[in-house]
């Protein structure tokens, strides 16, 4: 037996990709010679990583959440309108935004589980409703301003003894990541993955699949609200903050080796996928690739990542020096076709 690190299935490739990207950054950009450069990268990546963690819960349990981008926009716009520059309102507005995210997640989850509508459609409907409602409410041009207290979470930093100034967003991210990793190791987390893998089996063994799915959507909505608070900190208030974030988060999760359709993948890998995506964009920027081609590169990479994951076992088998026995599970091929 050879020693193997204890990693969840599918985690290794994304970590290798991430490492390569970080090495690439160190070579390409002088800013990445010291820790502060990487800390800045982590700070930029924090909202997407948090969204990816939320999206992971939904995807691993067998669903999609297309509403997170619209939810991020809604969070920022609502906060700006309600705070309107007054410092004293910050605390309850933050609670309100978090509650709003929770509520949206709850509605998504309830419609999916009780009315049996596919989550793709439910969250697509939610996307339309949120986008329309935000534009309706603001008339297309969001008003109001965020307070300094609100922006602190996205912009500010705290002094940590050894590391120096660590951005708030990084601390929040690490806390969420640790909590998510612990949660996925516990019984509920495992049941969530099992529900995505084989719903009937979980149901027959006494698991409450509907509750688990509901929980996944609520967590996704809540984390999208957290991401909107962080994004509100360093982006300007506009009705386009969250545009396309849902697809970016799904891309990140898939890049992390999580299976669409559920049942496989780890939450840390999903977050690593988001960080890789952000590192990739930074690297492309440093290399002078135009912003327009960025999305083309993103497209090629996600196809490659998924193809690798799907075909990977075969490729790995061929690359291995001493191949193991052939996969006995493969069903016999029909004679023709």
């Amino acid at each position: 037996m050879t020693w193997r690190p204890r990693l969840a299935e599918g985690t290794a490739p994304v970590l290798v990709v991430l490492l390569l990207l970080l090495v690439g950054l160190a070579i390409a950009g002088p800013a990445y010679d010291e820790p502060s450069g990487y800390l800045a990268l982590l700070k930029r990546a924090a909202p997407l990583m948090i969204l990816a963690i939320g999206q992971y819960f939904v995807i691993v349990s067998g669903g999609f959440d297309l509403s997170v981008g619209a939810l991020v926009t809604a969070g920022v716009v609502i906060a700006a309108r309600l705070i309107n520059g007054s410092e004293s309102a910050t605390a309850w507005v933050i609670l309100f935004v978090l509650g709003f995210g929770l509520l949206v997640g709850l509605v998504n989850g309830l419609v999916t589980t009780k009315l049996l509508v596919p989550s793709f459609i439910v969250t697509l409907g939610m996307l339309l409703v949120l986008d329309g409602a935000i534009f309706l409410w603001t008339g297309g041009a969001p008003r109001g301003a965020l307070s300094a207290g609100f922006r602190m979470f996205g912009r500010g930093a705290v002094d940590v003894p050894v590391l120096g100034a660590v951005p708030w967003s990084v601390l929040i991210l690490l806390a969420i990541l640790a909590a998510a990793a612990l949660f996925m190791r516990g019984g509920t987390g495992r049941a969530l993955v099992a529900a995505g893998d084989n719903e009937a089996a979980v149901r027959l063994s006494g698991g409450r699949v509907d509750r688990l799915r509901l929980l996944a959507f609520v967590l996704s909505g809540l984390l999208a609200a957290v991401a909107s608070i962080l994004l509100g900190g360093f982006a300007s208030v506009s009705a386009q903050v969250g545009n396309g974030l849902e697809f970016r988060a799904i891309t990140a999760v898939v890049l992390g080796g999580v299976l669409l359709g559920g049942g496989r993948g780890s939450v840390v890998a999903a977050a690593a996928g988001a960080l890789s995506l952000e590192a990739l964009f930074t690297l492309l920027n440093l290399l002078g690739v135009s912003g327009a081609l960025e999305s083309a590169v993103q497209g090629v990479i996600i196809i490659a990542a998924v193809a690798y994951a799907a075909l990977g076992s075969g490729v790995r088998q061929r690359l291995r020096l001493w191949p193991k026995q052939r996969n006995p599970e493969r069903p016999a091929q029909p004679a023709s076709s």
Partner: protein
Amino acid sequence: MSALEENTVPVTRKVTRPAFHRRLTPVAIVYIALAALLVVGSVLVGLRGEVLLDQAGILNIFTRATALGLVAIGQTMAILTGSLDLSVAYLVGLTSLIAAETMGGRDGMIVPGVLLALVVAAGVGLVNGLVITVLKANAFIATLGVALILRGYLEDTYTGPAGDVPRGFQHLGYDRIGPVPVAALLMLAVAALSWWYLSRTRPGYHMYAVGGDIEVARLSVVPTRRTIVTAHVLCSVAAGLTGIYLASRLGSGAPYVGTDAGYDLESIAAVVLGGTLLAGGRGGVVGTIGGVFILATLDTIFDDLEVDPFFKDVVRGVVLVTAVALYARRMTANRARGRLT
């Protein structure tokens, strides 16, 4: 049938009035809803002293339905096969540019322009299909990836509208017979052709089979890969037709004409609204056309009532989710009665 199942389903339940329930298929519901919408809309618009279904109103509904209808017909094939296509919006923009730039204002280049646009569209569909079948990528990711690649190309190459459509070709976009645009009739002809293909030909049946259960289809010697690739090629060609139509309407090609209208998610919404199962294997083009006309009629009614345009999105979202919830309820109710349809 296992013994367990036979014991739990009472035999008498199986024969309760199948005729009535069978008649109300999702397709029937869609068209009843469309009729109800037209009546309610006419009354509401009538209260303002206007007429919904006058010349301009009918023209408006058909014009709105044409572009979305073409995309949605293609999307129906992809979804029926158990796949879906998120790249259609960018493809619409790309093909409109290819058609307009090839034509370059010359009447003689109309046919080459149209053909080139369709060939490129078919090529994109082929790539979609091959990435899904050969590279075994999930359809969502495969077509999202292709969409991002198309977007990168469009953003890198074009800054705004380009190309020039000759006046002769603009007839396609603007000619009409009475209140009905010619292009809408062509769209309905494409729909009829797809209906025939899906319900009367072997490759069409294969699409249902693959969408229903790909393993069963494979074991029944259905060429699953070829079927999926065909569905994606047809889906992309339909998007290409939309691009050509929009080029003839706009007089030039526009890179973001597809994404601004949100044809990717909008077409999926129309297909699902039309009663096709998102998971594939059940549904059809007839329902999709009904779904498209519901969305177009809603838009027209809101225009006539001068409702805030953003309110439309809210209503659309609610209508979409409600409709699919209704279909889901019917299916579970039928399952409980021991029927599959």
